[in-house]
């Protein structure tokens, strides 16, 4: 901690002080988020209470509320972080696609691969997505639109490369790809499907959705 002491001795101490407080606050938030992630995964969204989350994080409920307005904000924050990582993985995967089918399948697989080890959290998110208020809030996350746009970009590339017809309805097709991507989660959650089984089903779905666009 020698380095910190040296910095404090300098003239910009006044500027640095709030940063340190911000850092402490950030650590508190990270602790709460880690505890919340764990509880949402074991108890589900409804079952995890702020009181339990606070206890698991080793702090008071007041301290939790000082950082997050309510449980739904906590959940949204976790989803925001995860989905940003999902979008990054999907974007990277798509760039390795050789054909439009291949790129789309790689996008699906990147998503399933990310959630494979945390299906209970995906289950909590899917359940919540059907509720009126919280569902809308989840839907409004920027990453959701980014995933749909990613499908659209690959479709547009497919048109450019001549794999799909010019009249390819990109908007409608992107949305349907996203629906199909989501629709396979229940198989993984309740049916225990492997990544390979999910990929096989996704490959068929992509083929059905693209079939009409391959004709002139």
């Amino acid at each position, binding site marked *: 901690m020698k380095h910190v002491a040296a910095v404090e001795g300098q003239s910009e101490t006044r500027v640095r002080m709030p940063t340190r407080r911000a850092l402490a606050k950030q650590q508190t938030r990270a602790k709460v988020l880690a505890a919340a992630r764990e509880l949402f995964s074991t108890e589900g969204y409804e079952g995890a209470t702020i009181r339990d989350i606070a206890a698991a994080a080793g702090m008071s409920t007041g301290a939790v509320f000082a950082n997050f307005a309510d449980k739904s904000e906590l959940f949204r924050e976790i989803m925001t972080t995860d989905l940003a990582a999902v979008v990054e993985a999907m974007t990277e995967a798509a760039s390795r696609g050789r054909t439009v089918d291949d790129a789309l399948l790689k996008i699906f697989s990147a998503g399933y691969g990310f959630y494979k080890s945390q299906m209970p959290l995906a289950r909590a998110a899917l359940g919540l997505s059907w509720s009126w208020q919280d569902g809308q809030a989840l839907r409004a996350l920027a990453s959701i639109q980014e995933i749909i746009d990613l499908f659209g970009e690959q479709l547009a590339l497919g048109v450019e490369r001549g794999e799909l017809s010019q009249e390819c309805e990109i908007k409608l097709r992107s949305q349907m790809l996203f629906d199909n991507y989501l629709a396979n989660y229940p198989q993984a959650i309740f049916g225990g499907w492997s990544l390979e089984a999910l990929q096989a089903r996704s490959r068929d779905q992509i083929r059905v959705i693209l*079939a009409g666009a391959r004709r002139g």
Partner: protein
Amino acid sequence: MNLRQTQKEATRRRVLDAARDLFETVGYEETTVREIASQAGVAVGSVFTCFSSKAEVLSQVMQERLDDLYGELDRVTPHLRGSTADRLSSIFALHFAFETRRTQLFLAHIAAAYSWRPGGSSVPYGRNPRLRGTIRDCVVEGQERGDVDPALDPDMIVDTLMAAYAWNYRLAAWENAGPERMSANMEQQIALVARGFSPVPN
């Protein structure tokens, strides 16, 4: 049926009616078993002699409604005419029209399928075997009539349509979409899939 059974059946009926109305108007999560009992005019304990939990009440309410829907479906499907796409649109439209009579109840049922709470016997959403079967029959009949490519696996088409169908309920949940908008959307989606499944001209 002896007197005790008759009484139990009457209680069950009143609880189901009260719960159906409360789930729709107040919401599933927001409704307590106590409130259901009070609306039904029975004791809380009587509710639990018929049902193990609130989730089971929801599940029974939904089962009864599904029986009504399937009755409607059975009456309508023999009279469907036109292309496979038209027939598919009609079957889905019937579902949208039926479910949006009680949208909140339907959404509660979907959400409950993901719930951690024990006692729910609801089928995970999108795996409703009756609808799936009806849609599959429609596609297979299309293959027999010749407007669906016989070389295609009907289940592949059914999977894709069922996923699109689910999206339209999200429109109801998030944007208050009514049955007309949901059906119109579904029709576009079916048309898109149909352009891919129609037989390739020689």
